[in-house]
């Protein structure tokens, strides 16, 4: 039985889909069998990020609705051996799937894969409840902005209420300079409020956008800083203790101590 990890945030546009894709590619690149489930039904984009849009025949709701078998709907990634995607339907609305159906689906996928990563829609409505229904663990993504952290806090509360304890935090689009100038929340400020373990910090990096537009993932770009950050997160998900990377390009390591793996 593999483990099911949901990537969630509350606020939209903070990097859930980017994180899901990079963790999937990163884990698969290390030889793991990984399935990504796009639970952002009606607003799919994981397939676009992975450059798999043109291969979709069946989608998630076809599987839960019994119109095809799971194997038929899973799309093999073109770059990455071992990585599969279960795409979201573009047309049907979020109520087309129930939390119970999602739970069953996640269990079925986890039979075949070591890691199942679920990309969650923004918000706290039914789409969110569906996405977390089958999860064993949760990753909460935020950016260092007050509004995003507030939404992350809300989500952590809801995850706790749904018995998904100890979610792990990814801080995305981190800009060292802005934090220095006190224009952005620091890692310490964020952890102080959210009081959860930090899984990693991903710097703001235009390479993310460049890769995305090519249907690739930064995690495979050896030179990019965001890619390094995602590779570190992958290691931590595997339970390895990797120190936080140097976020300031000119030296000075963060004094942060609460970095922890998912295991």
């Amino acid at each position, binding site marked *: 039985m593999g483990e099911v990890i949901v990537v969630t945030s509350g606020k939209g546009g903070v990097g859930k889909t980017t994180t899901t894709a990079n963790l999937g590619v990163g884990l698969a690149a290390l030889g793991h069998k990984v399935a990504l489930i796009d639970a952002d039904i009606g607003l799919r984009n994981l397939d676009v990020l992975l450059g798999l849009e043109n291969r979709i025949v069946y989608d998630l709701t076809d599987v839960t609705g019994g119109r095809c078998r799971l194997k038929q709907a899973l799309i093999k990634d073109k770059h990455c051996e071992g990585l599969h995607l279960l795409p979201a339907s573009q047309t049907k609305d979020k109520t087309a799937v129930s939390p119970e159906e999602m739970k069953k689906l996640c269990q079925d996928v986890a039979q075949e894969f070591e890691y199942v990563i679920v990309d969650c829609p923004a918000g706290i409505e039914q789409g969110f409840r569906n996405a977390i229904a089958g999860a064993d663990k949760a990753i909460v993504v935020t950016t260092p902005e007050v509004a995003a952290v507030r*939404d992350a*806090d*809300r989500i952590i509360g809801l995850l706790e*209420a749904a018995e998904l304890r100890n979610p792990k935090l990814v801080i995305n689009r981190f800009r060292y300079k802005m934090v220095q100038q006190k224009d952005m929340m620091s890692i310490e400020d964020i952890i*102080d409020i959210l009081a959860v373990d930090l899984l990693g910090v991903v710097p703001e990096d235009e390479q993310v956008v460049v890769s995305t537009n090519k249907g690739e993932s930064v995690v495979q770009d050896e030179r990019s800083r965001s890619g390094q950050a995602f590779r570190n997160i992958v290691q931590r998900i595997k339970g390895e203790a990797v120190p936080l990377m140097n976020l300031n390009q000119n030296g000075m390591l963060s004094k942060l101590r609460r970095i922890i793996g998912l295991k």
Partner: protein
Amino acid sequence: MASEAKKETTSLPEKELSEIKSNFIDSNTILVQRTLRAGQKIHFNGNVVILGDVNPGAEVVAAGNIIVMGNVRGVVHAGAEGNTQAMVMAFRLQPIQLRIASHITRPPDEEEMSGAYPEVAHIKDGVVTIEAFSASGER
């Protein structure tokens, strides 16, 4: 506000609410052993003691006193049914808004509120006053 406090509503899940409600210190005081996160509210017709933080976007409304063994960054309202003797005490008092009875206050926009020590807010000479907490109990 007054009638709201009576209802003892909260957005916490039913199960946790009953856990909290079974955590009486005395018949008039509840103990909340968790941090209140954004969107979570506790309304109680008595005193509330919180072992955790009150985060931005969280709200505690009590007819009596509010004591927070942690950071207050959300909204707190003590004496919600009109008790002007009610107080709010916290390890770190940095509320978005603090109310006692019908008095509503917020931290000054320029200044950074609160030092790194416990403080008490109460009504003194008709205004909400925040002072360092002293164990002697002197008000």
